[in-house]
């Protein structure tokens, strides 16, 4: 029996959920119980990772369509089905998710001391939500996962966050909700007005939509995703959420959650409404370029390390969006790769910031200086990660940025030039921060006594650094898996729809309801 015949996706998506419920059986009232909870959560997330590794192993690189597809009826009356599958665009993001989750659990081993069980349940539920978004091929399913994911993230920020956690959590929730609601309206419109009567994404992707109607549908989808990305000027929730979230929350938020926005643009907004996407491309590219430069400039003057990294995300994600909207193979492939790269580097940066925060209980840059003397190994990891993030060739960030820029240049030279300036600015803010934290004089008394990395922290950082080198030096295997899907995607977004005859209407829900109400009337 071939690997593809097992329902691997379902197992992968729902194992963390199962694990979360299983954690309920473990008492966490004492320290030993807390340890058991952590170990159990780690094991569940590791098994999930292994399943995703099996999927990676069984993935057909030369096939552009959906693989490992599972399909079943769910609510047939409304055309809702359980339809999952993945292609070269979602595969890297899935691996990123299953890879980062165990690391965050391992990282929070000593950091989280209150409500240990609840915390790990939230993390595992979150993993299910994220994986679900990446594999859903049904709008309804997609939306359930999309919204479901918000709740554990909200709790993680709101319960285990910093001093202004409630403000940050509510801000995070409201921003994302506002966008999601628009998307919901657009999804319902697609379902009822487009004449298909189904929520199946693949069906909708294969049916052209009248260009005249694409505009506002695209806007609704794109706005929802742009908030998530976050694209300038919808980014202000991000720094607050990052600063207040516990380290694991920041890692997941930056590593995976932000990618949902770009993934959504790529999977839904652009191929569903290609004409509108091309029309809006210039506006969105302008916003992306502003985001790249703006994020970098603002990052430069931050005093809080975490906030600096948060603003750098705005800049990096701008690159991804730019790559997608360049409508080129290089841009699209680079964009997907850059999503993964950003997840790895920024995730690692947040972990590193978390490591000094848990030692020193401050993140103000001015409180540090000369740390390299006290923590040499830590400094090596910090420098490598920062360099990966600013796109030093040989490390992961470069390949993505380079291909994105090459794609952008082939579409528009001014955009390319403007975006390339982000490369210079990135070097400035990152190195300046490194200089003030790690170097710049001898460490103060408090700082000179900081212990270097312990074994657990090594275990967390080494896989990330290995990946940084691997993706920087030999990205061929992963590029080979992305490329066919990216090519198919490109054909999809470049197709031209001239006119579509007005669609046959499906019954609206009010009609369904009133027909059943009629029976009540005497």
């Amino acid at each position, binding site marked *: 029996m071939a690997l593809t015949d097992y329902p691997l996706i379902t197992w992968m998506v729902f194992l963390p959920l199962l694990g979360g419920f299983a954690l309920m059986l473990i008492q966490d009232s004492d320290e030993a119980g807390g340890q058991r909870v952590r170990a159990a959560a780690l094991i569940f997330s590791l098994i999930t990772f292994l399943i995703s590794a099996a999927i990676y192993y069984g993935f057909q690189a030369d096939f552009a369509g959906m693989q490992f597809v599972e399909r079943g009826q769910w609510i047939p009356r409304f055309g809702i089905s359980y339809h999952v599958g993945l292609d070269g665009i979602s595969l890297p993001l899935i691996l990123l998710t299953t890879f980062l989750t165990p690391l965050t659990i391992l990282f929070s081993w000593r950091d989280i001391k209150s409500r240990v069980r609840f915390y790990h349940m939230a993390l595992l539920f979150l993993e299910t939500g994220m994986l679900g978004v990446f594999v859903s091929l049904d709008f309804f399913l997609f939306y359930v996962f999309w919204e479901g994911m918000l709740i554990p993230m909200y709790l993680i920020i709101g319960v285990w966050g910093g001093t202004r956690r409630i403000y940050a959590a509510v801000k995070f929730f*409201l*921003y994302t909700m506002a966008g999601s609601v628009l998307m919901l309206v657009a999804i319902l419109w697609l379902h009822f007005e487009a004449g298909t009567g189904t929520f199946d994404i693949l069906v909708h992707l294969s049916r052209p939509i009248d260009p005249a109607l694409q505009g506002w549908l695209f806007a609704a989808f794109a706005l929802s995703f742009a908030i998530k990305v976050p694209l300038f*000027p919808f980014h*202000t929730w991000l*720094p607050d959420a990052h600063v207040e979230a516990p380290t694991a929350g920041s890692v997941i938020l930056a590593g995976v959650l932000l990618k949902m926005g770009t993934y959504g643009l790529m999977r839904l907004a652009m191929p569903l409404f290609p004409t509108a996407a091309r029309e809006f491309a210039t506006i969105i590219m302008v916003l992306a370029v502003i985001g790249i430069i*703006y994020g970098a*400039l*603002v990052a*430069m*003057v*931050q005093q809080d390390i975490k906030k600096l990294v948060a603003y750098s995300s705005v800049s990096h994600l701008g690159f991804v969006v730019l790559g997608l909207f360049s409508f080129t*193979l*290089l841009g699209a*492939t*680079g964009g997907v790769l850059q999503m993964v790269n950003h997840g790895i580097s920024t995730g690692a940066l947040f972990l590193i910031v978390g490591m000094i925060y848990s030692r020193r209980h401050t993140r103000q840059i001015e409180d540090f200086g*000369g740390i*390299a*003397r006290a923590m*040499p190994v830590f400094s090596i990891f910090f*420098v490598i990660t920062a*360099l990966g993030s600013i796109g*030093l*060739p*040989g490390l992961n960030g470069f*390949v993505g940025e*380079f*291909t994105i*820029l*090459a794609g952008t*240049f*082939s579409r528009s*030279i001014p955009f*390319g*030039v403007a975006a*390339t*300036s982000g*490369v*210079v600015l990135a*070097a*400035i803010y990152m*190195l*300046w921060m490194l*200089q003030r934290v*790690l*170097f*710049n*004089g*001898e460490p103060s008394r408090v700082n000179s006594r900081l212990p270097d990395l312990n074994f657990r922290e090594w275990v967390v950082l080494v896989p990330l650094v290995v990946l940084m080198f691997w993706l920087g*030096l*030999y*990205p*061929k295997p992963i*590029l*080979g898996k992305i*490329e066919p899907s990216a*090519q198919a995607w490109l054909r999809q977004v470049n197709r031209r729809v001239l006119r579509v005859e007005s669609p046959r209407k499906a019954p609206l829900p009010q009609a369904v309801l009133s027909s059943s109400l009629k029976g*009540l*009337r*005497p």
Partner: protein
Amino acid sequence: MMNLIALILFLPLAGLFVNLLFGWKLGEKFAGWVASAAISGAFLAAMGGFVRLIGLPPEARLLRLVLFEWIPIGGFQVNAGFMLDPLSSVMTLVITGVGALIHFYSMGYMHGDRGVVRYFIYLNLFVFFMLTLVLGDNFLVLFVGWEGVGLCSYLLIGFWFGRESACEAGKKAFVFNRVGDFCFLIGLFLIIGVFGTLDFAEVLGRAPTTLVAGSGIATAICLLLFAGATGKSAQIPLYVWLPDAMEGPTPVSALIHAATMVTAGVYMVARAYVLFELSPVAMNVVAIVGAVTLLVAASIALVQTDIKRVLAYSTVSQLGYMVLALGVGAYSAAIFHLMTHAFFKALLFMGAGSVIHSLDGEQEMNKMGGLNAALPVTSMTCTIAALAIAGVFPLAGFFSKDAILYSAMTSEHGGVLFWLAGAAGALMTAIYIFRLIFKTFHGKCNLTMETQARLHESPRVMTLPLQALAGLSIAGGWVGIPLIPGADIFGGFLAPSLGGLAEGHHEALFEVIMMAISLAIALLGIYIAYKLFVRNVGGGAAYAERWPRLYRLVLNKYYVDEAYDYMIIQPVKRISTRLWKDFDDGFVDSSVGGVGGFVRLIGAAARQLQTGYVKSYAITMLVGALAVILYLTSGMK
């Protein structure tokens, strides 16, 4: 048979890994020997590669190595590919040869420093990246090395991070380089746009047919690539980082900021000379930038009193010569000067390092003097290097500088003005370098008695490399003797990489006159220095008093740093802070907050309905139920 290119490349990397794994435990001596042995091995491999190339017929002198496909996307493909041709071969020999000597020297110089293992790891990493730069067979692998050496330079300048100025200088170097890289990258993207590949062989091979000579795109590509070179090779307007880079340990200055990394820009332009030939405008810009840089930097070097800063500005100035040579189309002369400069400038830096080492870190020339007696080897070798850089026959600098000056005058891209600039630069070179020699090694000793008592010549591990380089500074130029047919071995060897030599139109008499003039200029410069700083001590100061404003202007390096700070750095910081505070926290958040406030207002009104008492909810439900019933029954009539 072992692949020589792989051997050249990976021996330094192997040294790095051995030190990374064992160096921390086994200590400084072990680390030093491992690192030095790795580079020496690489040097032997480079020799092997050179011999192999010599054994091939001139047109076929090319060894290749493709490790793997690096970025394959669709039709676009970049390989991790390397090649050894005559140009790369010369570069690898210089890098590993001078590099190995500096490694040995470092064992003495860095002795007792607590970060010495880290130092050797950085140094090996640097050599690895530098070799990647010169061996890469496409622009992107070159760029990997390009950025990598920039990184190592950042790390090594800031090596003594206990000093804040060192960190600041390291960052400055990296950022200025990144500004250059920004242009370089854009140039690469344009190349991709035009050629669809970054492979040297394809781009350079197809350039003459694909690009229209003199077209805007050709000029744009060349100017952008050259802008990258101005960052790395410290040319106007991006040269200001190099003098600050002297914060690093002196052997680093010798290796990175004199012999190898800063010449990367020159190498790159020489490598892409086919493109530059297509754009006369770009060639002119290159030549002008080189000429202006060599004059400006040499004039600053005249008045600096920090021994390493004098050498730093001297390096900028000498790089200006190389760039000028590139601009007038004398590529092989540029590479020739690059090589001889690597010998004598590395020697000068190491000599300065030897002085600094024996004076416990003192770098101020005004506090030195008369060190000749205490440091005989250092003094001797430095004097040789000074003669070489000043261009005295028959030392190395004479031949290479003469080749540049001759081309500046006679080449189709050249002109009298370029020659004049070069000649004026040569005069200033002779003056400032002998000012340094006289102030340091001759005259009255200005040291405290206590320091004088402790003066000592550096250990042999440091003086031996000095002597070796002194030998090279003398004889290094003899491979490129003009006039005698067949004696320009250097140019002949490079010809396959850099196009055919312009043989034939060397007019013997004219050339001899030119040589005589440049020799006379050098001797005149030395005489002026002698007059001002030995015979009549304080003669220099007298001139300074006569033109105080000019003196201050030059002493403060024409206020370029201040101008950058005032015109670029401060405004950017201000704007960024404004964006963050006013736009992000101000405008966006308050407009979003405004929406929130409105909702909250409605909420506050609606809140009055929510008493929290079960009863009021029950009544509301009742009323609601009655309303629904009424509605449903209203149609019954």
